[in-house]
């Protein structure tokens, strides 16, 4: 991008994956940006996989769907330089069950449903690792996290690898399942009702990412400001469906 030109830029395209982030943006951020005269186009990708390539070819200016860890993995993978602009309110994963009341009902041979994409799968496995149910190999990656790097811990768990959206619907058919927070939010349940809730490490929190070269443009600053504004915080806190979301630390200074 041409720096001079992007300073003046008022038309921006922002890419989203599936999740609640697009909804947060549409209701909480978009009005703020429009007030400032921005003309924002929202592009939703049903496959998260496709967002970064789109950024790489300049089809979108910013994205809200990924974690820092995933972004860094992709930077290597695609040979681009994306950076984190700010954190957004993110939904932690939770370990849930409809067949069991408690975690201690786990035993050898229990089935646990995991998401099939590498980033969510890794996060899910980390929850199990924290519980001691499994062990994870040292060299397990992030963007190419692989179920083969998981071995038995306290229990010999068998996994069902499913589409993330499927897991909630399939809980009846497994002992436990790790469900992404956005699905819980959309289904009207509470994240905190999970048997175990992810303590999302910073590297797995959802961020707004832009190309490094755009980091200091006027529109990027305005975007960041909108996410850290009181108006947005009020909106998030007023919506019941965002209960249990991990909130950006930047708000603490609001």
């Amino acid at each position, binding site marked *: 991008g041409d720096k001079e030109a992007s300073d003046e830029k008022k038309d921006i395209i922002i890419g989203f994956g599936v999740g609640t982030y697009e909804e947060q943006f549409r209701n909480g951020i978009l009005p703020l940006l429009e007030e400032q005269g921005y003309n924002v186009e929202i592009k939703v990708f049903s496959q998260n996989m496709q967002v970064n390539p789109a950024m790489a070819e300049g089809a979108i200016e910013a994205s809200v769907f990924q974690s820092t860890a995933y972004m860094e993995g992709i930077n290597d993978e695609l040979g681009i330089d994306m950076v984190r602009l700010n954190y957004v309110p993110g939904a932690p994963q939770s370990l849930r069950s409809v067949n069991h009341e408690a975690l201690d009902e786990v035993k050898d041979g229990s089935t646990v449903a995991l998401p*099939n994409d590498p980033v969510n799968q890794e996060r899910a496995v980390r929850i199990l690792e924290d519980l001691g149910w499994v062990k994870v190999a040292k060299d397990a990656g992030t*963007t190419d996290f692989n179920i083969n790097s998981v071995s038995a811990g306290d229990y010999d768990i068998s996994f069902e690898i499913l*589409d993330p*959206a*499927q897991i909630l619907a*399939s809980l009846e*058919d497994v002992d436990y399942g790790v469900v992404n927070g956005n699905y819980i939010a959309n289904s009207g349940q509470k994240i905190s009702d999970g048997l175990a809730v992810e303590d999302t490490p910073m590297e797995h929190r959802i961020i707004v990412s832009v190309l490094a070269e755009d980091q200091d443009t006027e529109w990027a600053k305005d975007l960041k400001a909108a996410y850290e504004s009181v108006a947005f915080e009020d909106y998030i806190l007023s919506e019941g469906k965002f209960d249990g979301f991990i909130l950006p630390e930047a708000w603490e200074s609001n």
Partner: protein
Amino acid sequence: MFDTSITFGQFIQAIIDTLYMVGMSLLVGTIIGLILGILIVVTRPSGVVEMKWIYGILNPIINIVRSVPFIILLVAIIPFTRGIVGTSIGTTAAIVPLIIFISPFIARLVENSLLEVNPGIIEAAEAMGATPFQVIWYFVLPEAFGSLILSLTTATISLIGATAMAGTVGGGGVGDLAIVYGYQRFDTFAMVSTVIILITFVQVIQSIGNALARLIRRN
């Protein structure tokens, strides 16, 4: 290039899963598809046993099922799947939506093949006092056989494509391996090798289909 995280065992399992899913859903789907296809050909206005209400029900049902994107279908019928195979996930559970996906598709291809049969043949059958079942069984199906085989070949290959989505419900299979490893994890070796396996499947099925059809058409 050979830097992959898929194990040989996973490959073999995927091939077995694909064969199992395709085989079972093709078997059941062909039966249902044939029956549906025959029914809509036979009961249509000016068909062998014109029955407007059957045609009037089946025709839109086939369309409705065909309208639903496969992934939505997968979810929508979870209770049904669970009722039939006891679970909504895994290879066996994937077969149920696959059958529901492929049956109306086969029905349409069958319909098209059967409609191409020379009406004179059907007349000859009726003149012999053949029952509607006999008309179909002894006259229409054999005459349409070459075309039916090619239709089934086409359907089988579409089915292999659909099994790739079976991973959504933990069905596994080669297509799922291609998506989960090749696509989501940028594992080029996994991508290429799974696609080669798929191509081999398709090529073998198509060759068998062509050879059978040629044998039957004798041209």
